[in-house]
């Protein structure tokens, strides 16, 4: 426990609890300044409001207003050119019976499971490896290298990936061919396309989880691992019994952020496969984009957006609910 925590849990003196009057304070009763405790409290609140206001205004303007706007727009038919027309629940009826929309939700969930699991596994394995015994300069090289794809544009990275995964002319199949593996239809078969999209996404995104895990691993006291070693625990055993439980808060953050990002995937499937073959890699955000900007059905696109918003909220709430069981705080 830190000193602050010790102070905060100091027990009240024994005996009947006194009721404080309105002007009473827990701080020294004789103020050394001319201000009263009440005015000081008002000042502190004012200062807090001043500091928080810009962020709150930003959230309201750039998050709450668009959300409310999207919900409102989902009840209208609007094609940009004409004025919006009231549609009520018709947009929702339309999208809930549209097989493309339903398939896109299924694809997005499948993608989320695969991408987040792979991303967390790779990031965790690499973070543990980098955190092992190695010179500081080499550690820095690895950290930079793993983080580097995250700062690149997802669209441009996907263009490169599209070339790499090309069935006829791509280097990936050429490499496989050199060891006798036949050409894989990465982007032109249903399973291959999803695999390519997941790999392209994970390649770009795992750096974020990696950095979180490196930070989390550094907070685990070395003594705990040393004590386990003295007790004869093996390397894998130490990671399973010590590293993972102590890293669970970081895992929670990484998985929450990872899932929210994965549910909004757009660039990789859009550039790599354009949602195909068929609808096999069409994601929800792709459907929103196509419905709004290519078919000019902004009301229906907003309705899909509202459903995605609800899905993200539900999944995130579920994660926090489950985290009560599995996340251990020191």
């Amino acid at each position, binding site marked *: 426990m830190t000193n602050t925590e010790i102070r905060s849990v100091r027990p009240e003196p024994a005996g009947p609890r006194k009721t404080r009057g309105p002007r009473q304070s827990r*701080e020294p009763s004789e103020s050394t300044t001319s201000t009263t405790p009440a005015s000081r409290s008002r*000042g*502190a609140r004012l200062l807090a409001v001043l500091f928080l206001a810009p962020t709150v205004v930003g959230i309201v303007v750039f998050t709450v207003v668009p959300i409310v706007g999207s919900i409102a727009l989902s009840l209208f038919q609007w094609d940009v050119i004409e004025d919006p027309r009231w549609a009520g629940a018709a947009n929702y009826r339309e999208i809930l019976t549209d097989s493309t929309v339903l398939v896109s939700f299924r694809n997005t969930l499948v993608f989320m499971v695969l991408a987040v699991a792979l991303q967390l596994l790779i990031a965790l394995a690499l973070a543990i490896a980098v955190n092992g015994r190695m010179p500081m300069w080499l550690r820095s090289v690895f950290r930079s290298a793993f983080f580097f794809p995250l700062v690149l544009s997802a669209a441009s990275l996907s263009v490169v990936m*599209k070339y790499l995964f*090309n069935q006829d002319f791509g280097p990936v199949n050429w490499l496989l061919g050199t060891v006798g593996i036949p050409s894989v239809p990465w982007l032109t*078969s249903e399973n291959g396309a999803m695999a390519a999209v997941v790999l392209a996404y994970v390649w770009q995104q795992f750096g974020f989880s990696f950095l979180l895990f490196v930070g989390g691993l550094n907070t685990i006291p070395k003594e705990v691992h040393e004590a386990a070693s003295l007790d004869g625990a093996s390397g894998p055993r130490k990671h399973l019994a010590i590293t993972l439980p102590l890293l669970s808060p970081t895992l929670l953050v990484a998985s929450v952020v990872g899932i929210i990002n994965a549910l909004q995937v757009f660039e990789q499937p859009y550039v790599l496969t354009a949602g195909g073959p068929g609808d096999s890699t069409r994601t929800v955000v792709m459907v929103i984009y196509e419905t709004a*900007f290519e078919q*000019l059905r902004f009301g229906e696109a907003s309705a899909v957006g509202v459903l995605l918003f609800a899905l993200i909220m539900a999944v995130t709430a579920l994660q926090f609910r489950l985290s009560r069981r599995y996340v251990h705080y020191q």
Partner: protein
Amino acid sequence: MTDSLLSRRGLMRYGAYGAGAAAVAGVAAGWDRLTAADIPGRDDGSLVIATLGSAFNPEAQRALRDGFREVHPDIRIRINPVQAYDWSDFFSKILTQIAAGTAPDLVYVATEGVQLFARRLGVPLDAWAKRDAAELRTYFADVHPSLVESMMYEGSLYQLPVEFNAADMYLNTRVLERAGAELPDDDWTRDDFTALLRAMKRSNGAAFTPYFWTNRLWGGVVPWLFAGGTNLLAESKAPGGDWLWNSFYPEAERRGRGGGYRWTTPLADTDRVAEVYDYLASLVQDDLCTRPEGGDGRNLVGVFSTGRVGVTPAGGFWAGGLHEAGMKPTDYDVRYFPRGRARRHQFGAAGYAMLRTSRMRDEAWEFIKYTAREDVMTQLFAANQTTPARRSMVDAARYRKTGPAHWQVFYDTLDKIPSTGPIPAPPQVNEVEQLLIKHTGTALASPGAVRPALRRLQGDLERAMEREV
């Protein structure tokens, strides 16, 4: 505790800091700086012209701008090159500009978007064309009527075509030599085509792909449908347009012309369409071509020029691209699309459409006329990045440096094959194209998938065509 740390004096001090910061911010805000209003031409009464970014290079754009200023010094213009991957992407960006209240006056629109723009956003050019008929006579005399008809909608003219590209076949002559094959005849058939692909496959390595194609409206499955004597959507012609045909074209050329195409009932589940898909599926199955989604136009020049591809459909636009990639004029050649049940070819054309939101319509018309001039088109298309709509410009001098040897094919596709027609592009074009791409991918993904995929394509197209655009 926070409240114990802040005295009134402290609060005043922080307040003073805040006021100081606000004053600094106010001074900064009042300082001369660049804003959106400083973008040259914005809200200054300029005629704003949106072009597909890659359609004209910077030199050509300068020529367009400076040349127009010389002729019309009283009209200020601003070229707004919009970078886009394809026409569909381009339309999306233009519509976003319109939604944002920054609509251009003129938009460069290809066949894919002619009817969408005409129906929702375009201004018919009929009145101006009639007024300036004398001035336009030489233009129309030089431009094939099929190109003009493809720019009409429900009896009215919406654009003057300045360029087009028909889907002909490019062949790599070095690959042909390796295969011991000759350049095919003018009248080659689908069977000749298949035999040639097999010969190419035999004489080249495993990393070689005889036929490269893409999954889209132009150059994808549609030219095969045309050659197969069918179409994606039933085709007819709108009435009207006599004012144009009677004014500008002789009797022989105006026969059968109307007020523009109508594409209505989907034909995806017909036997002829299935026959075409079965043929393409057999090519995929036999490893004679790329899968359509795998074909990406962006690396096509590279794989063709290095001999990893033997044949691909392309228009006159490819002559410039292959020359840039280092191919000699003798390294490749061009032929008509192989004949199936029919000899029909597909083309797409482009020109400037005037938007209803424009408040400078007369000025916009002057610009449209200006871009249709031969001297202007000569400057714009100097690099052979497309086929000029003017027949007189498609000559030996133009292709001497770039090739191909049979450059006549580009315009002959219109002149010698009268049935050649535009891409099926109704006002619902964006959804139609999406559905075509999606279901073509599914149809060719596995053996036996053609008919179920075409049935789904038919159903989806019917719904799309019923949708009011």
